[in-house]
């Protein structure tokens, strides 16, 4: 039964990604060309509400359903992994025009070539797992 809830969240998220055009290669390209406020507005407005909401949750000590702790753990401190990993991700994001959420949305929308991107992303993840001990973190 609990899985149905997550499925519903996923459907909701998929519709948002597609309808907002955040899953469009053109919107990603346009964002990196600074051609429109659209993507910045999406991320920025999500962020403003996100920051306010997380602050309220923390200050009031609000718990998740079932009295569970909120998953708001601080991230491990480092610069190298976030900067280098981030740059590699950004190169791929701008080339394929899709990040790991919209990929699945596009598969559902019937763009079957995106399956190549998903397979390559799985391979990239796998190779990272193989070589991660040799990389600066």
């Amino acid at each position, binding site marked *: 039964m609990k899985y149905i809830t*997550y499925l519903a969240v996923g459907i909701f998220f998929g519709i948002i990604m597609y309808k907002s055009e955040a*899953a469009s290669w053109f919107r990603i390209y346009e964002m990196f060309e600074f051609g429109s406020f659209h993507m910045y507005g999406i991320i920025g407005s999500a*962020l403003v509400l996100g920051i306010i909401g997380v602050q309220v949750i923390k200050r009031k000590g609000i718990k998740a359903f079932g009295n569970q702790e909120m998953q708001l753990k601080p991230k491990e*401190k480092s610069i190298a992994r976030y*900067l280098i990993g981030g740059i590699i991700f*950004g190169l791929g994001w701008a080339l394929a025009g899709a*990040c*790991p959420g919209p990929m699945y949305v596009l598969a559902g929308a019937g763009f079957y070539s995106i399956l190549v991107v998903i397979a390559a992303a799985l391979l990239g*993840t796998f190779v990272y797992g193989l070589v991660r001990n040799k990389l600066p973190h």
Partner: protein
Amino acid sequence: MNWIYEPWPWYVAGPLIALTMFSLLFLGKQFGMSSNLRTMCSMGGAGKAADFFKFDWKKERWNLMVVVGAVIGGFLASNYMSNNTVAINPKVAQQLSQDYGIDSGGKAYLPPELFAKENLDDPFVLAILIFGGFMVGFGARYAGGCTSGHAISGLSNLQLPSLIAVIGFFIGGLIMVHLIYPLIFG
């Protein structure tokens, strides 16, 4: 009934993304899509090759359900709620056409030049999809998250590491579009 096909403006989409994140937080989870790639590697037996994939992937099944939902959401939105065209800035569309021969700006959701099934046997197109996907998968795990995990979840929690990662995303994206695109598409 035409309104249902209209794209959603940023001020509708952004708050709904925040709502997605808070829904998952209240369910005791964290919003992050790229960790599913690691989970899928583990399901496929990658734990035999690297310790990084030796973890109890069954605990991540909830996130795989989000993925299944995202696929369904994409199907519903593209078939019943969209004209499947993206009205980008006409100047950007014109530049794509003039400089790179991508003529579909403003007329399609994804450029058929790169994403039409028929073009999959073009080694150039295939290489772009593979390199792009590979870097997304490798980089997301190296950076410990992607657009959802860092740019939305992490920054909402005022995490400096997420800010560094997001700056990295933009450095990478700007290098790709402004320095590498002219080399590969020009």
